[in-house]
Structure formats: C-alpha cells, structure tokens
C-alpha cells in the first residue's frame, strides 16, 4: 500500500500502475463481492432452515398441542401462529424481520427476543472467554511445536491435540468435574447463580470454559502447526533460515505472517463448534445461558426459538468468516 514514492528506475518493464481512484474502485468492488457472497450464503442457509421446519412433519401448532386436543384446536392455534399463510410469505416476513431484531414468537406466544435477552450476556461471556483462550493456546502450542519439527515437543503436541479434538465437550466436562470438583474439591460442581441470574464469581466459569477450550484448542493447534509447516517449505522462509536467523525470528517474523490466512480460516471454522459446544456445556453445568434456553426449547419442541438461535449463530459465524476474509486479504495485499 506504500507505493506512492517515485517509481523504480526499471519500472518500464512492469505494468503501468493503475490510478489510485481506479484501484480504490476495484477494491470496493472486491469487498462488495466478498460481502455479497457471504450474505447470500447466509440467506441460503436461513431458507434451508425455514424449509426444514416447514416441509418436515410436526409444526409448532401440533408440537405444542395439548394431549387430546381436537383438530379444530390445532387449526385455531395454527391460525393464531400465522401458520395458515403461504410458506414464502412467512419466510419473507421472518427474514425481513430478523435484521431489525425481531426474532419471532415462540410456540408459547412469548417474543423470542425477550426470551434470549437475559441469558445472552452470560453465553457471550462464556463463549468469548473460551474463544480467546483457544486462539492463544493454539498459537502458543502450534508455534512451540513448529520450533523443532519432529522433536519431542512437536510429537507430544501432535498426539495431545489429535486426542483432544476428538473429544465431545461433555466428555471433557465430565473429566473436569471428576478431577477439579469430586477429587480435589477445588470448584463447585454446578454453576451457582447470583440473585440477578448471572454466574456468581469466576470459579463457576472455569470448568465450562475449559470444557469448551480443550477440544477446540486441539483442533486449532493442528491448524496452526500445519500452516506453519506449509510456510516453512516456502523459499523465503528457507532463505531466512539459511541466512542464519534464529529459529524465533524465522518463525515469528517470516513464517507466521504468511500462515495467518490459514489460521484465521481454521479459527473461524471453530466458532461454530464453540457455539454448538456451548449448548451442551451450559446444560451440563446448569449455566444460565442461551444453551439452557435452547435445551428447554428442545424439550418443548419450540421450533421458533431454535430457528431464531440458528439464525443468530449463522449471522455471528458469517461475521467471523468476514473477519477471516479480511485477514486473508490483508496478508495477501501486503505483498505488493
């Protein structure tokens, strides 16, 4: 981006640089293209979600119907919930209301937005803590292993991360409960909530966060290690090594910058896994978050709530993917 100085003396051999305005225009077009693609994917997914709910048997009216309720009762409820209107019309209403924060109405007639408002901060706290720890842990372990390829650390990290990413979060949680709570008694086994419904104190966060972090760190460590191995094979990293730079300089200054796109994509992928894991971990620890609401909604067969949560998580993942796109564009853009 710093190409504003005098052109190189031998510039004649190179293509004529585009005027700044044209370049900015091309950049805007590309940004719009990437943005449009991601948003389109999001809309497609929402349509699929809606279709899955609509086309398969068992809509919200029958699901919430009382036992023994007659067909007339179900029909009335269906009218109440607006289920008698054409599918595309309801899809249009639903999807156009989403950006405004209107997540729809639950099968019990409550507004989904209100239902999710209270537990949302708790889940954000849990998820973001786990996310940050995952990224930091994976970067540290991955670079540590890459410093000495095929060394003891490398092999140990490889084995441990392979084992870790295979584990479902609730299995990790059971192990943590056993060690940190039952055997040592360091931490409470269930989340203690304060009067306002938020977790009381950081100790209740430790186990849920760890249960989410361990598998995702395993996954991302492998991504980081793999991206660094790919970078180590590039000519300029090899040249840096042959120039006698220290392992640290070679890794951090030459290999890691080029590995960012792969790492960003990997981390973005694990956002979805983290969100899914949250549902399970919150249920297990009775943590007052979205996951607990969701588990309740599953028990009630409350489809609008589930659809709303899916829509929100898809939107969140889209944002993270766009950030990963940005990282990739920056890394590649820094080459000229």
């Amino acid at each position: 981006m710093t190409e504003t100085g005098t052109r190189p003396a031998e510039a004649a051999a190179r293509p004529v640089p585009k005027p700044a305005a044209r370049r900015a225009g091309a950049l805007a077009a590309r940004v719009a293209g990437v943005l449009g693609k991601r948003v389109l994917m999001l809309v497609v997914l929402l349509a699929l979600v809606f279709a899955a709910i609509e086309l398969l048997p068992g809509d919200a009216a029958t699901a919430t119907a009382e036992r023994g309720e007659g067909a007339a009762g179900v029909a009335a409820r269906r009218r109440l919930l607006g289920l008698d209107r054409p599918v595309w019309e309801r899809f249009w209403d639903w999807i156009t209301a989403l950006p405004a924060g209107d997540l729809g109405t639950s099968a019990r007639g409550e507004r989904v937005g209100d239902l999710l408002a209270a537990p949302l901060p708790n889940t954000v706290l849990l998820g973001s803590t786990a996310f940050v720890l995952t990224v930091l842990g994976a970067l540290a372990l991955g670079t540590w292993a890459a410093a000495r390829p095929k060394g003891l650390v490398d092999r140990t990290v490889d084995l441990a991360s392979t084992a870790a990413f295979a584990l479902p979060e609730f299995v990790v949680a059971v192990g943590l409960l056993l060690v940190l709570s039952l055997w040592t008694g360091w931490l409470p086994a269930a989340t203690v909530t304060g009067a306002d419904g938020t977790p009381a104190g950081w100790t209740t966060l430790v186990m849920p966060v760890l249960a989410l972090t361990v598998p995702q760190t395993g996954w991302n460590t492998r991504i980081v290690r793999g991206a660094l191995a790919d970078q180590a094979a590039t000519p300029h990293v090899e040249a840096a090594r042959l120039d006698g730079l220290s392992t640290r300089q070679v890794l951090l200054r030459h290999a890691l910058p080029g590995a960012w796109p792969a790492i960003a994509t990997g981390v973005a992928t694990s956002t979805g896994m983290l969100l899914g894991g949250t549902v399970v971990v919150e249920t297990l620890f009775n943590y007052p978050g979205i996951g607990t609401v969701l588990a309740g909604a599953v028990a009630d067969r409350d489809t609008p709530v589930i659809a709303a949560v899916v829509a929100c998580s898809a939107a969140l993942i889209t944002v993270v993917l766009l950030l990963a796109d940005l990282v990739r564009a920056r890394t590649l853009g820094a080459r000229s």
Partner: protein
Amino acid sequence: MTTAEVSVRPRPRRPEPRVLAPVVPAVLLLLVALAGPLLAAHPVDKPVTAPYGEAGASGALLGGDQLGRDVLSRLLNGGSALIGSALVVAVVVTFLATLLGCFAVLGPRLGRLVERAADTAILLPPVLGILLLALAWPGGGRLAITVAAVLLGVPYAVRIVAGAAAPVAATGFVEAAVASGERPGHLALREILPNLRATVLALFGLRFVDAVYVISMAGFLQLGPRPPEADWALMIRENGPGILLNPWAVVAPGLAIGLLAISVNLAANALAPATARRAALR
C-alpha cells in the same frame, strides 16, 4: 508438490508394525463395544441395586444408576448402537463425498456448487443442525440423527476430496485422457479415484470421529435414543444429578466415549500419511 507426489509415490505396501501399533487399541475397543451385550451380567432395564447404589454393592461392579440399574451392564450395552450409527454415517459420508468430489474437479459448475455448499454448511454448527432436524422430524429417533449427521457432514467432506482431487485432475495422464475423449465417468472413477486412497482413508477416520461426536452430542441432548435404552451419552445426562453419589455412573460412559474417540482418531492419524491428514483437516 502434490502432483509430483502423485506421479512418483509407490503403491502402498504392507504398513510397518510401528504404524499398526496405534490401531490396536481402537480395534480392541470396537470389538469390546460391539460384543458388549453378550458380556453383560444383568438386564439393562431392571433395577438390581439402590438408585445410585455404590460400586460393588449387590453384584453391580460399577454401582447403580438413577433407577438402580447395573451401570456395567448398561455400559456394555450402550456402545454398539453408537458405534454402529457412527460407522454408517462415516461410510455414507465418505462414499458420497468421494463420488461427488471426483466429479466436482472435472466440471467447473459442479465444483463451484460444492464450494458454495461447504460455505453454507459451515454456518450451521452440527449441534444446532441436529437440534433443528430432530425437532422438525419428531419421533425420528436414531434415524433422524443419522440422516442429520450425513447431511451436515457431506458438504465439508466433498470439499476435502475435491481439494485432494484437484491436483490429480491437473496431471498429465488425466489431461491426455480428456484430450483423447474419455467420458467424465471414466475420468472420475478410473483415473482420479484410485489415486486418492490416502485421502479417502484419512477422511473416513475423521468422519467416524466426527460422527461419534455428533451422535453422542445428540444422545446427550436426549434427541436420539429414548429411555430406557442404554446409551453412553444418554447415561451421562441421566446420571448427572447423582454424580456425587455414584460417580461411576457418569464417569464410566464418559471414559468409554472419550477412549473411543481418541483411539479411533489416533488410529486414523497413524494410517493416513501426513499430507492427506492435513488436507483432510481443512
């Protein structure tokens, strides 16, 4: 790099014993889990001891669960269905993905579709996807979970196969065959597919691990198997409240799932070459 490897890599010979070592625990565990029902001492649905009865009491080696049923017997019975459906998912996903992936690299249109499908699928976390389908298909039980796991797994897996097949599709022998007028079916199945053995193997291992993950999550969320069925994931959920009384009722199935996932993942890791593994991770 990959193209050169494709051209010169000798056909795989018999694996070394060192490579086979990590496979042994996985195979043993699978056998025990599948033969488990034959080894169980008690029926899975009759109480033999007090609720959350202590380990060792009244012949229940690992104690009783929330209804006093024998934890060990339920443990021995609870693996085969999980492993069975995970195997089905892994086989179906790998098969479909391999087929689609081989064709996707031959036609730009199918290739783009595969890319878009994977981009879309990434927006739906597997757990939420399963919740959705289980709700939309009430009473689907294990079948619904299996179908959901396949639907959620395929787009991602196709991208992996297509990624591995792309360099093969660019090799000289495929180009010569295209120029000579070979049909896509022959190109995909006879020219490209036989060179993807390592990738398919790595993919199968990872898909199995992933299926165990997804199906056990569903079991934990009480979406798949119904009580009184014995299922490892369901056992953890059911016996969670009694973890202080009889920890084994929770820990034993937890260990079983953990060991299954880890041993299969390590086995897949050892069997597939590093390049294929890295490709399969993306």
